[in-house]
């Protein structure tokens, strides 16, 4: 096994949720039929409880465009999308 590129790109939590959903993951009990394995389901369950569950691609694109004015680093924008801070404390960390 050869590791060609250890970091081929960072993913927001939303992108992981979207990818798992496109494979057939869902919250209800149709789990047996989809081709998603149980360990992937655990990740999906965890991510659904975070801010990523009700974002859409348009929201994220719009957010990134609006953030260009402030000149934030890409990592910071990604982290804001993932954590969705609602108070100053969240942003501080």
């Amino acid at each position, binding site marked *: 096994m050869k590791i060609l590129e250890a970091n081929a790109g960072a*993913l927001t939590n939303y992108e992981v949720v979207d990818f798992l959903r496109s*494979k057939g993951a869902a919250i209800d009990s149709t789990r047996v039929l989809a081709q998603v394995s149980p360990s992937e389901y655990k990740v999906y369950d*965890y991510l659904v409880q975070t801010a990523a569950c009700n974002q859409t691609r348009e929201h994220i694109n719009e957010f990134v465009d609006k953030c260009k004015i402030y000149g934030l680093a890409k990592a910071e924008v990604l982290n804001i999308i993932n954590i969705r801070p609602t108070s100053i404390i969240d942003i501080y960390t």
Partner: protein
Amino acid sequence: MVQMFYLSRIEHTFRVPPSLLNLPIEEAIKGELEKLFLDKVIADLGLCVSVYDIKSIEGGFIFPSDGAATYTVVFRLIMFRPFVGEIIAAKVKESNATGLRLSIGFFDDIYIPAHLFPKPSSFKPDPNKKDKGTWEWEYDEEPYIIDGIDEIKFRVHNVSYPPIPIEQPKEAKPFAPMVITVSSSPESHNLIGICCNFLDLIPVSLKAYLGTLKA
């Protein structure tokens, strides 16, 4: 670029069993990749969550005295690899005198050692069970008990990948290839009784080792 989930590009050569010959090639290869990599830890890359896509498939040669074809595949995996300083929300899984253990559903080896708790806090041993107990955090003269309901935010401190041990004593807990050590320092706390947020950087020691695939 720092994130929780990364894409990693890997190249691997492996054989596809002849029982899968009736499937289209991408499906057979994807199934084999999932069996090989899913839910496994790769050293310095993290925990493999999912196969993202397949970039290229080459080969398909059949070696002598073998019934299966061997392929060289380049593919991308979604890896879970928290960075030092990241904030993760996790549930308390167990607590004993050495510290706290947390879980995020798909990953359970997250530890807070006793010295990385917010000061002051103390450990109250449970009279019923010897090893278990509860941790309390004293702030403004009020003790806040960390119990099973709370979901706590932690900061990753260190990630370490311990090497696979050759032998283990019988009572040792199952080997943890990836260990995340986190710290909780109360820089923000929510004074609503049920939920306490400790934002702290805990060293995340991710000890990852993928023994069978170390080639």
